[in-house]
């Protein structure tokens, strides 16, 4: 992994959330400065801030994009006890010329009496719906029945969780076998031993969300929660950020074994648990295919977790601050990295330090040569230098004396050589 680009965010206070749109061509940021900014990627790969506006009268905790089937729609939630839905307006040629877009507030959801801590759009097959959760312990589910009129949102469900809520996650599965499902985490810090993760499932008959499961083993404050993309599995995978990173599987117990009509019962297992962040874990999120989980913790690092083909979960990469300031202009990096920027990485990788590479655990204990910095290249260095300019296929290629004397490679056939 490598940093391709760094962009000055220009928020006047702490940024709380960054969010890519579905295609990765736009992003949104939100901050304690009460604003949201939208950024667009140009054809050349540069990012430009195309809108920045005050959204709330308090810190904005989260910002998230609706699926593009519903247009260009954002939702935000804030300390000011509200969540809001925003839509981009097309037109106004003046704006377009200035490279600016215009966002209007379509609705303010004011039902919470406390800080709204998370907002998430439901999977698109459910229509245009969103869920919020708040410090008062209530999950609210809203729906916009007319996707062309986003000013009308109706509160469909209020689910009480009894504990201050910090995070929600919709189960993304679109399988008919899986009713809509939402998991809720609580960061309630009071010294009780109550379980902090609850899973609610929609019941077709009662038309209500009912509690399906409580993860009894999670008793420490939970800061984030994320269902993995389903990949056609019959069971669900749920990642939880608490004092460590935990990955659970929820396997539905066959219906005929449970009382019919009631919520699905699950067989719950911990498949991985990592305390590498040393302390609190604050965020967990899956990549789009659900093969890699990223987590962010008090150690200031983002860690990447992946199961290899033997189903062993392990840390495969760490994103870590280097502590030194970003210098120079507001946007820097290598969008189209020339070879120049590639090579150091390749070289690093040969020493085993490029991210995402160690999916195969070495069979033997780590070798001395692995971390030895002196030889950057894969091939062993020649013991004696030869003045061989003849064949660049030679493994000793980068060679001080060869730089000036070079001849094109001998192409195949194979038998060339001596």
């Amino acid at each position, binding site marked *: 992994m490598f940093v391709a680009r760094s962009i000055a965010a220009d928020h006047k206070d702490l940024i709380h959330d960054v969010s890519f749109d579905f295609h990765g061509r736009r*992003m949104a940021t939100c901050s304690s400065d009460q604003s949201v900014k939208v950024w667009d990627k140009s*054809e050349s790969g540069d990012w430009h801030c195309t809108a920045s506006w005050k959204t709330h009268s308090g810190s904005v905790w989260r910002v998230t994009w609706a699926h*593009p089937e519903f247009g260009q729609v954002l939702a935000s939630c804030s300390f000011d006890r509200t969540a809001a839905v925003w839509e981009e307006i097309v037109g106004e040629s003046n704006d377009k010329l200035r490279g600016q877009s215009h966002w209007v507030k379509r609705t303010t959801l004011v039902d919470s009496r406390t800080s709204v801590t998370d907002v998430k759009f439901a999977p698109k097959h459910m229509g245009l719906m969103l869920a919020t959760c708040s410090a008062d312990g209530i999950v609210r589910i809203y729906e916009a029945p007319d996707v062309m009129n986003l000013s009308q949102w109706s509160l469909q469900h209020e689910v009480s969780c009894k504990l201050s809520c910090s995070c929600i996650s919709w189960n993304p599965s679109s399988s008919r076998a899986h009713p809509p499902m939402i998991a809720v985490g609580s960061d309630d810090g009071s010294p009780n031993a109550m379980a902090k993760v609850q899973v609610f499932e929609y019941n077709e008959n009662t038309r209500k969300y009912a509690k399906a499961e409580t993860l009894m083993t999670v008793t420490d404050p939970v800061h984030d929660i994320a269902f993995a993309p389903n990949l056609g599995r019959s069971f669900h995978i749920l990642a939880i950020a608490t004092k460590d990173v935990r990955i659970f599987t929820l396997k539905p117990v066959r219906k005929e074994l449970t009382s019919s009509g009631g919520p699905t019962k699950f067989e719950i297992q911990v498949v991985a648990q990592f305390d590498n962040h040393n302390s609190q874990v604050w965020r967990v999120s899956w990549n789009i295919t659900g093969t890699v989980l990223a987590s962010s913790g008090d150690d200031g690092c983002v860690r990447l977790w992946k199961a290899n083909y033997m189903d062993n979960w392990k840390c495969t990469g760490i994103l870590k601050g280097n502590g030194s300031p970003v210098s120079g202009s507001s946007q820097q990096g290598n969008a*189209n990295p020339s070879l120049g920027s590639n090579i150091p990485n390749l070289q690093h990788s040969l020493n085993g330090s490029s991210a995402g590479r160690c999916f195969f655990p*070495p069979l033997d204990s*780590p070798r001395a040569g692995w971390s030895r910095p002196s030889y950057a290249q894969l091939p062993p260095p020649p013991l004696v230098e030869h003045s061989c300019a003849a064949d660049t296929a*030679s493994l000793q290629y980068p060679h001080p004396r060869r730089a000036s004397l070079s001849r*094109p490679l001998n192409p195949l056939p194979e038998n060339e050589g001596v």
Partner: protein
Amino acid sequence: MEELDGEPTVTLIPGVNSQKKQMCFDWGPGEMLVCETSFSKKEKSEMVPGCPYIHIIRKDIDVYCKILRKLFNESHGIFVGLQRIEEELTGKSRKAQLVRVSKNYRSVIRACMEEMHQLAIAAKDPAGDSQFSSQISILSAMELIWNLCEILFIEVAPAGPLLLHLLDWVRLHVCEVDSLSADVLGSENPSKHKDFWKLPGNTQTLTELELKWQHWHEECERHLQDGTFASSPHLEALCKIMLGDEAALLEEKELLSNWYHFLVTRLLYSHPTVKPMDLHRYAQSSLDVFLGGESNTEPLDNILLAAFEFDIHQVIKECSTALSNWWFVAHLTDLLDHCKLLQSHNLYFGSNMREFLLLEYASGLFAHHSLWQLGVDYFDYCPELGRVSLELHIERIPLSTEQKALKVLRVCEQRQMTEQVRSICKILAMKAVRNNRLGSALSWSIRAKDAAFATLVSDRFLRDYCERGCFSDLDLIDNLGPAMMLSDRLTFLGKYREFHRLYGEKRFVDAAALLLSLMTSQIAPRSFWMTLLTDALPLLEQKQVIFSAEQTYELMRCLEDLTSGRLVHGEPDAQQLQDDDIETTKVEMLRIGLARNLARSIIKEGSLEGS
């Protein structure tokens, strides 16, 4: 042993102090966003000094390298060809084909190296040059490993030819000999050697060969003991080398570029008929002797050693850790799998190692704005998770142009990925509506088979017609065909437009019948009836009678239905009163027109029947 963790790899994010701050992040389809934040202090907003940066993180750097792109492109063709190799081919012909495929892969690597070499020459600055060079050295290492794997795993050369292959292997990758004619290897008595080496099966058996070699070996030894070369130390050394004397070989160590060069040389003079099974022993001891106790082996050494040990699994593991892209392991593993060399590791993950690596490689390609098209075929050949991975990746391709969208759609349609097709069309329809391109919106929603959206767009069309008195996108609406049946409103739109066409063509009788049927069949929305009735007015005023008496009765019933159904709520304002005025006038005119037409039609029908 599997539990032993490799060290995770670290990527440094500039400007973030991990001691004091945390990072928030988000995944995108090909990239990741990372930004400094502080999670613990939520309620208090604390002013941060300086300005935080948003960092865009990418995964596979090689995907963005222009020259490697050629490697990806050309190997894609070989890969697809390999997947289609006929299963029934067995024995020699199959093996020959697999060896050919392997050589093709290697020649692509070589071509890539060559191109890189040209660029290295062209690069004037030394920094650029060294960067190209190190890239070349990596490609070169890949080719070296691949070649050895080809000899050992694919050719499966038996004792005898095995050493020949290894000689070629060393010759291809060690270059010194050419320029140093006095070299040990160069003076290896080629004529004798060449005569000597005849492939077993051609003229002699392996045993015969061994016997002859033994004989020659003894002769050399006798010469040495007799002191034939005592006068010339050089010749004596040469003779010792030909006898495979290790000490003598090591004296010329500087001419042997590395341990595997030493290994092959040693085998040539002391064990020319080495069996595959014994290779590892010689390889290990050559490595130990050559490095002289320095046990610091490099990744490449370990990979080659694992190959000599015939431990394919280990070769792949070591390669996947040491190389910066998935290209090499994915393609090599796939080829070895076609050679039926991999036991499958069918565990819960649902795919074997081959598939695991191919999925990684293909996902990397999807991060690139055009290479994703190659990735599609790789996913196609992953039986377990290829399909669902493709579904998840392809719907994220940015639909920046119509052309690109059509390309993505074609891929989905070829694979019957109906949900992705629907979603992509829906996204495009929504985009078009937002930009007020109704024709495009309509055709995308028809393609998405989205009835609700087609209704919505049809309503927009009708509204536009009411406002402007004409239709846009006539081509589209005139050629809806069976697509018209998608939604009632769309059917109405199509039929209503047909009415206008008939009217324009002066086919008044047909036009009149159609107009009436739109109301009687309830296809026309109630809100549109007044417009339709108004459209009937000029037909009622024509010289000849168009609506029959029966049809006129129907029209009258429609009008009465409409007017009697209207209820006035509350106090009407001025605007409403004015609107009502217009409405009343319209209704009055219609009533007069209908009555007059009824009279004319009764007379006409009566007189026709009478005649």
